Structures are given as structure tokens and as C-alpha cells.
């Protein structure tokens, strides 16, 4: 599962992209748990950052498939 980091998630993860090894579908909370295991610094973003699959935002109850590309999009406020 390809994970693409935006804005602060990129800074906290220390990379722009990451291949999350998984061979099964993940729910949103499962996905975050797996990710935070690898990147503990991302924990504060779970509550507020949105996940997007391909070109659309994911709702909280949607499952993510092993071949999906998931983007992590935290809010930013600078102006």
C-alpha cells in the first residue's frame, strides 16, 4: 500500500512516500495504527488529518485495499 505524505505529515514521517507492507484490507483506524507503529511522530495527526484514496477523500468507515494509494492530508493554516 503506497502512502503519500503531505505538509506536516511529510515532516513528521521524514519522507514523502512510504510503502506500507500489507496483504489485507485495512479500516481507517487499522491503517493509522499500522502507520503510527512505524512513524510514532504521526500520532498527533490522526484526529484531524484526512485520508484520500486516489482522487477522493475517504470516509471514516471505508476500507483501504492493499493496492490503494493513500494520501495523508493534514490541515494547514499558514497565510
Amino acid at each position, binding site marked *: 500500500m503506497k502512502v503519500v505524505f*503531505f505538509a506536516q505529515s511529510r515532516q513528521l514521517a521524514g519522507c514523502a512516500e512510504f510503502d506500507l507492507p500489507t496483504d489485507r484490507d485495512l479500516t481507517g483506524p487499522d491503517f493509522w495504527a499500522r502507520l503510527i507503529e512505524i512513524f510514532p511522530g504521526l500520532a*498527533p495527526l490522526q484526529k484531524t488529518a484526512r485520508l484520500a484514496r486516489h*482522487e477522493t*477523500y475517504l470516509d471514516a468507515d471505508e476500507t483501504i485495499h492493499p493496492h490503494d494509494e493513500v494520501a495523508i492530508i493534514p490541515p494547514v*493554516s*499558514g*497565510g
Partner: protein
Amino acid sequence: MSFIPRINKVYPDIAFTNDEIRRYGRHLIMPEVTLEGQQKLKAARVIVIGTGGLGAPILAYLAAAGVGHIGVVDFDTVDISNLHRQIIHKTGNVGKPKTQSAVEMMKDINPTIEIKTYDTSFRSDNAFELIKDYDIVIDGTDNFPTRYLVNDACALLDKPNVYGSIFRFEGQATVFWASRGPCYRCLYPEPPEPGTVPSCAEGGVLGVLPGVVGTIQATEAVKLIIGQGDPLIGRLLLFDALKMKFKELKLRKDPKCPLCGTNKTITELIDYDQFCGVSPAQQKAVFIEEVEVEDVEAALDAGRIPSEIDLLDIREPFEAKIAQIPNSRLISLAEFSKRMHELDSAREIWLYCKDGARSGKAWKLLHDAGFRKIKNVAGGIDAWSEEIDPNTPRY
């Protein structure tokens, strides 16, 4: 047809002088604009909240394009650290109100338009009054409480909110218009934990970045006014300057949105500092013990730093290269958790960063780890430069 019903009613009566016709000639010869589009622009009323990095290009381009009535809101004064990106402000205007500085430039660009300045912060108690007579609101603010406020005020008065925000090398832009698509709360229902998303002052920003995002906002405002093309309603544009890529995400209206969903629970403006957890009462919940830069100077003069007190610089190494307080030891916040074991909890430890925000986080990390003889240097090296040693460069 303009997307703004009021403009469609009033624009046919708008007239131009011959000078104005020449000024807008390159607009007038495009079939998407023509004289009618230019009349719509002159009839339009647009208010821009914030004259910072985003506000600067927005205001300049709206003035140049001939938007007839522009409202400019900002409470702040021009600081020299604004100038690398806020290109509407000039060096000679450092210290002046930003509204005044912005209007000077806008009048230089186009003296034919009407500009109103509001030298005030945008708050729950003045938001409706400020935006009610405008057709379009453009969000050029720089913090989450004000962004939720702009969103809610626009949704409650059914105004389009042309949104843009930036972080370091990245930006986001969209048009929120609750009666026609999603609002900011549909996208981000929960504000981030206070202190988890750095501002431009804390995280830095590429100077040209708000230029890209602000011009996208100005473009969207012009399109809404003249009624051409596809507005960014229901689409979030993500811009990544390092990869030089745009990504577009479809946004959906959230039926559960408390502001614009089917069961609305937000029907008036609220306390946005409290909503975002940044009100003074909430911040006091964790009490960080502080010392002033005067205390640091006294401790250095008396030799207590470094003999009794460890002075810890928790900024990044590249910041320490710009300037440091004497006798300080560098452990950056990024490495803090890993290197905390190098510190001696029996000794007194004073922490500083640029302005006291990051060192406050480091203070909490140490406090959580059981350190009790720790103090945060209020105002950081900025305060040191201002109060103690003016030769220390500010950045």
C-alpha cells in the same frame, strides 16, 4: 452570468471612462470577459481577510483587475520578517499598519477602484458586520480559529469563501460555498490539537509559495464574478512546490456537518479560540514555568550558567548557526526524545528556542519524563535580541 446574483442585477448600469477602457483593454478583447465581464468586476464587492503572504498577491491582482470595491482587513503592522513573501508591503512601511501599507500599493496599481480598510482583527463579534455587504470573502488568514470563523460566518450568510492556506513548500486552495458544495468543516470537522501544526513563523515558508496560492485564490474570485469556467467548489487543489505538482481531490458535502449538513447544530458564531483549544484558560491547564531573558543574562553574568544551570538551545542546527545565546548547548526538538537521557535531572535546565513555543513543547516532554528543575525562557532568542543584545540577528 456571474455566480453572484447581486452582480447580475447591477452590472448593466456600470460605465467606464476612456482611460479605464484602455486600462482593461486586454480583458475586454477576450470573449470570456468583454465589456460585460469588466462591468461585473467593477460592480463586485470583495473582502480579503488578512494582508499577509496570501493577501498580498490577492489584493494586488484584484486591484489590477478592476474589482470595484475591495475591503481590506488586518490588525497587524508590517514587520521586516514579512517582506520576503508579503510583496504588497515595502521596506519603507515597516512599522505601519498593514491595511494602510496595502492600500498605498493598491492605489498605485489602480487609483480608479474603491478600497475600504478595517484596521481590526476578524472576530466573532464583528465578522457578520464586516462581510455582510460583500459578495465574496477571501480567506488569507494564518490560524485555525480564524479559518473556522471565516468558514462559519460565510456559511451562515451564504457567501462564497475563497480559501487558501500554506505550509512551508505546500499549499491548499478551494472555494467553500455551503449552499452549493462542502464547507471547511466538511473537510476538517476536528481542529488539530493546539501546537501540533506550526504557523509560518514557527515552521517557515518559502517566500514565493503564498504567491502561487494567493494568485489561485484571486483567479477563483475573478471567475466567480465574471461567471466563467469551473469554480473550485467541491475540489481541493493541493500544490507541492518541491515536486512541482498539483493534485486535485474531490470534496464531498458531509451530511453530518454541524454547520451545513442535514441536522445543523451550529446556527450562530461561537468562541473559536475555545473550539480550537487555544483560549488562554485552556492553555493555562498546563503551566509551564518560565524565566525571562533578563534572568538568563543575570545567570550568565554570575557564572551560574554553565556552572549550576544548563542552558539548552532546542532549535535546529541551521538556526543555531544564525545566532545563539552564549554558553548554550544544542539539542534540537527533532532529536529531543532520543537524546533526553543525556540530560541530568538533578541539575537546573533552562530551555529556549526562537520564540518560546518549541521550547515549551520540550519543557512538557521533560516534565512528562519526571524532570522538575526545568524552566522555559519566555520569548526565546527573539526576546534576547530585543531586550538584551541587539547585535543578535533576528530571523
